[in-house]
């Protein structure tokens, strides 16, 4: 069983690694460490593991969100949360979590958690994702030619729906994701606004609204190569938002 230890504190990682070593369970090894949620997902992507010992409070991407992304992968690892004191968070995934541990973790408790993880099937692990729904994600997870990309939501200029896909236009290019524009709109309602049936734009990136020749309105969006059309229906809301910027 391959284990990945994820915590932003070096001493916490060292301790978990040492404890797993002392357990001396046959075939159970710590094969890597990661310092936050993004790091953990990328580490699992490059060298898949069976179990992740995952801290919750971490910079960049917290453990809850990382667990959600991980559970959507093709071969999701079993996640065991380790947390100092997170009573609310604990309640959120109690139903389907493989296990959760409180720090400082005791050796025996860790053994029980790893034993439990052994018995979990991929299907059960995937269901954890349904329970773990943090307020809104900090990253969008996408695949480009088979490899995983995590795009920070702060770097996204706009989402454009095309056929079956949504194209995420961000500062370093564009990626395709299989999510509905409606779901994205609901999840990121504080940061993105609908300007057209097929387009969702980062509110703080709208620099100006302009009339085009044909009586329509276009939005100038920082980081977008061309102006984006604002539909008549969305115009009042967008105009109101721009006024307050």
């Amino acid at each position: 069983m391959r284990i990945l230890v994820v915590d932003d504190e070096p001493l916490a990682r060292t301790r978990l690694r040492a404890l797993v070593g002392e357990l001396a369970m046959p075939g159970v090894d710590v094969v890597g460490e990661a310092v936050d949620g993004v790091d953990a997902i990328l580490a699992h992507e490059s060298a898949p593991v069976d179990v992740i010992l995952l801290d919750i409070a971490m910079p960049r991407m917290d453990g809850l969100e990382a667990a959600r992304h991980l559970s959507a992968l093709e071969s999701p690892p079993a996640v065991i949360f380790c947390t100092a004191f997170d009573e609310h968070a604990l309640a959120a995934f109690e139903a389907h979590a493989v296990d959760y541990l409180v720090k400082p973790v005791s050796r025996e408790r860790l053994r029980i958690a790893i034993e439990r993880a052994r018995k979990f099937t991929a299907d059960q692990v995937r269901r954890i994702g349904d329970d773990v729904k943090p307020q809104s994600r900090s990253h969008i997870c996408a695949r480009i030619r088979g490899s995983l990309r995590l795009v920070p939501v702060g770097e996204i200029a706009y989402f454009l729906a095309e056929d079956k896909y949504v194209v995420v236009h961000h500062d370093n290019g564009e990626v395709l994701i299989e999510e509905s524009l409606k779901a994205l709109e609901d999840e990121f309602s504080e940061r993105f606004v609908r300007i057209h049936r097929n387009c969702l734009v980062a509110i703080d990136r709208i620099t100006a609204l302009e009339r085009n020749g044909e009586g329509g309105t276009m939005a100038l969006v920082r980081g977008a190569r061309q102006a984006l059309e604002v539909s008549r229906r969305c115009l009042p809301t967008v105009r109101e938002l721009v006024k307050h910027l």
Partner: protein
Amino acid sequence: MTAGAVRNATARGWMPDFCSLPILGSVVVTVELIVLIVLIAPGQGGWPTLRDLFASSFLAQWIAMISAALLCKLGPWLGRRRFWIGGMIATLVPALVAMACSAIAGSLDQSLALGWIPVAEASTFLLSNAVLAAVVGLILMRYIFVLQQWQRGVEAQAAARIETLQARIRPHFLFNSLNAIASLIRIDAEKAETAVEDLAMVFRATLREERADHTLADELELIDRYLAIESLRLGDRLRVTRTIEPVLRDCRIPALSVQPLIENAIHHGVQALPEGGLIAISAYRDGSDLCVSVRNPKPAHPLPRLGGNHIALGNIRERLRMRYGDCAALEVDAGGDYHAVTLRVPLQEGAGR
């Protein structure tokens, strides 16, 4: 009375919850005691017979149960009325029930020709029962009301105490520190020992009941201990600079007025940044004020995290206001990628208080 009965009562305002079993129980017992008192009281012509006791109890409990049932149903409605209007109606209920029940009892007595109630006293019987019921109802309601107030007071006090204790102990900090120390024991026992000493000092300071003034030097010492623990956890992600005018070290400052600012700087700033950041602490003189400023970087898009230490600022402000009135302040300057808080207190030098 159980806590459940009390919690239920809050939905009914001041009105006791007559649907709850504990309150019904106390109604039954009280009514029975009153029946005994009335029967034994002098002027009733000697000791009551068993028949008198049964008959009176039967009637009284009927009145009590019907009144309680009515008050249970009327409770939410009465609770929304003004106190004295609701109270009057609530007192009238047992009185009217008593009259009705007494009338029924009287006619039963007559039709069965039992002769337990003398015909001549029929109207007195009705009236005295009504008055008795009203008085007993009033006393009972008053008693339950006072009990509820007291219970609510106790609960509120306990909740407030737990909240303060939580704010002082800061479970997140405590358990993370213990975790770091547990790890350190294997690697560097000496460092672990120092960390335990630091942790003890920080907690001794935070758990002290009275928070008197101490010198800026004392506060800085406490902050150093605190930072020592945090840098164990965060390693080189935590960087600190101190710019302190040496002459100010002996100035007086409320205990634990700066340390919580450092804690916030770590919680919302350094810890939330993957690469960490620099906390700049400076103490300088501004006119007749001593200023201590804490500045830290913060993520442009903070994660929507649970918890945090938002109470800290409000708590410090409150203490400053009590200690200095309007002469002290806590100024917050938050930019896009940094956060700076400045504590400003009147300059007071020397050891005197």
